[in-house]
């Protein structure tokens, strides 16, 4: 084997990219979060000097009068989208599509994959049309109207949260759906046949045989998707942009983006936005570490058994 250097040659492109786009930014986001850097003093403020550092941004976050609103929104958004769709709906689709005719089941899974591969701008526009006021809106015209529910108003303004759950959930569900259905299909047929022979109903088979056997994928999807949801804000930004009322649907990640990278009232407050990000980064790292513990990281990093040439 030529030299001890070979592995590092193979790793070098990753090292360069990770340094440029993870390490340097990570260090910078920490430093920036202590400064008052914004569009107006860019090039003037020497943000890299400790003299210009203070905890003001963090004080500003925790004393922000919308702090509890934003925190509450974030928790509600993550918890409900996860429970209803990313795990709940994903499980329902996986269970049903593995218990009906193969072809039909497959068609349903392809259908549920569509939201994930649709460009997000088009996808949110589609939902706006579904939520539109009567007589244009599809849901008003074909569901609520005939049933006599509501006055045909623009549903996105009346029930913004419902649509945030739906729009994000329809994308999120496909991730769990794929993992769950492949896990269910991997369960040896003997188990389910045995329970059927013993006279169990389909429901009992699912409840007492299949669900316990997909415990790991369930746990994995829950932890992994919690992290994804925590930092996702694209759909909310395009759908309500935090509105319709003041901060009504603003979540943590969206606040960081708004403060730092949109010129709301003519200022992009990089420092303040960075502070919002740092809090999220810390939550993310803590959760990632817990997630490694849960998934028995040691087994994943076993030494290669083959390198004894």
């Amino acid at each position, binding site marked *: 084997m030529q030299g001890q250097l070979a592995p590092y040659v193979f790793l070098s492109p990753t090292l360069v990219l990770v340094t440029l*786009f993870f390490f340097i930014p990570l260090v910078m986001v920490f430093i920036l979060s202590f400064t008052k850097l914004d569009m107006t003093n860019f090039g003037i403020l020497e943000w890299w000097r400790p003299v210009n550092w203070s905890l003001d941004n963090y004080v500003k976050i925790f004393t922000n009068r919308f702090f509890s609103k934003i925190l509450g929104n974030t928790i509600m958004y993550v918890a409900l989208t996860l429970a209803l769709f990313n795990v709940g709906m994903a499980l329902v689709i996986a269970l049903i599509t593995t218990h009906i005719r193969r072809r039909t089941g497959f068609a349903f899974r392809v259908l549920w994959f569509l939201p994930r591969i649709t460009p997000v701008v088009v996808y949110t526009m589609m939902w706006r049309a579904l939520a539109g006021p009567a007589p244009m809106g599809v849901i008003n015209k074909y569901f609520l109207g005939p049933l006599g529910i509501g006055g045909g108003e623009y549903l996105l303004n009346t029930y913004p949260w419902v649509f945030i759950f739906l729009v994000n959930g329809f994308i999120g569900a496909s991730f769990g759906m794929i993992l769950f259905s*492949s896990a269910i299909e991997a369960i040896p047929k003997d188990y389910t046949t045995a329970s059927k022979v013993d006279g169990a109903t389909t429901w009992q088979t699912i409840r007492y045989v299949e669900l316990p056997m997909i415990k790991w994928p369930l746990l994995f999807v829950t932890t992994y998707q919690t992290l994804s949801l925590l930092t996702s804000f694209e759909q909310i930004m395009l759908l309500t942009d935090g509105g319709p009322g003041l901060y009504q649907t603003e979540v943590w990640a969206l606040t960081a983006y708004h403060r730092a990278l949109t010129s709301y009232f003519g200022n992009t407050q990089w420092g303040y936005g960075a502070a919002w990000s740092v809090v999220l980064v810390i939550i993310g790292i803590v959760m990632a570490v817990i997630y490694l513990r849960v998934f028995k990281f040691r087994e994943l990093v076993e030494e290669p058994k083959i390198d004894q040439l």
Partner: protein
Amino acid sequence: MMLRRLKPALAYLTLIVPSALIILGFLWLLITSFSTRIEGLRSLGWTLHNWRFLWESPFGPQYPSIWVVTLNTLVMSLIMTLIVVVVSSLTGYALSRMKFPGRKGFLSLTLILHAFPSVTLLIPIYFVLLWIAKIPLIGRDVPLLGGFGYNTLGGVALVMVAFQLPFGIWIMKGFFDNISWDMERSALIDGASRFKVWWQIIMPNIKPGIAALSIFAFLTAWNAYLIPLTFTAGRAGKSAVLSLYLQNFISESVMTEWNAVAAVGLFQLVPVVLFFLFTQEALLNIYGGGKKGGV
């Protein structure tokens, strides 16, 4: 006994009602793109007017035409896919086959990065791209790509590569782990270099893995919205991609032409859906293979 029948019925209902929403949504998109106005799913008049962006620039000559934008999107997606696949397989190979100090640390690092909220780094990445833009040669003025700095296709592609890498590395490592060591051993004994072995013997053997990762990366890049939005100067600029072009219709004009937006949206969506239908088996492979790698 009632309950026993009610439960499956309820279950089917929870699948069919939301599925109907997806179907209705996409039907609306299709019908509205060929209509002057639409009420629910009923067209109030058929037209091709919404598709005129295909042969003329709807915002005037200062905006790039749809074909330039499509080419941009294609170039960016292909570049990003290529880099992701090459870099992930290099690193995945080293992590799967070689013993070196720091291996464990590197593996846990990629796993943490994988779970890491990378969007929170958008602000400093903006500065990094500004710096890269100042580097001669690669910063700007690279043909086709524009360069790798701020407001270039290459820069946007590079940021997306970085965000995809942790996922790609774990997927590729999983595929390498499944390959027997024998072929490689004999080649190494015959004196082939590590690089040659990787390129000539191993890579051809993990074609399913390469296919799965390429499709996944390509779809991500083609649909990307947030990163191009954040790191290019504007929707009208020379590095505009399709998802930003779409945004033109929504905010620039006085009255948003939703029907035209739907048409452009379909224009962006149709190739992806076709691509997906032809490759879905390989794509679903990535999730199956991913279980082993812990992704």
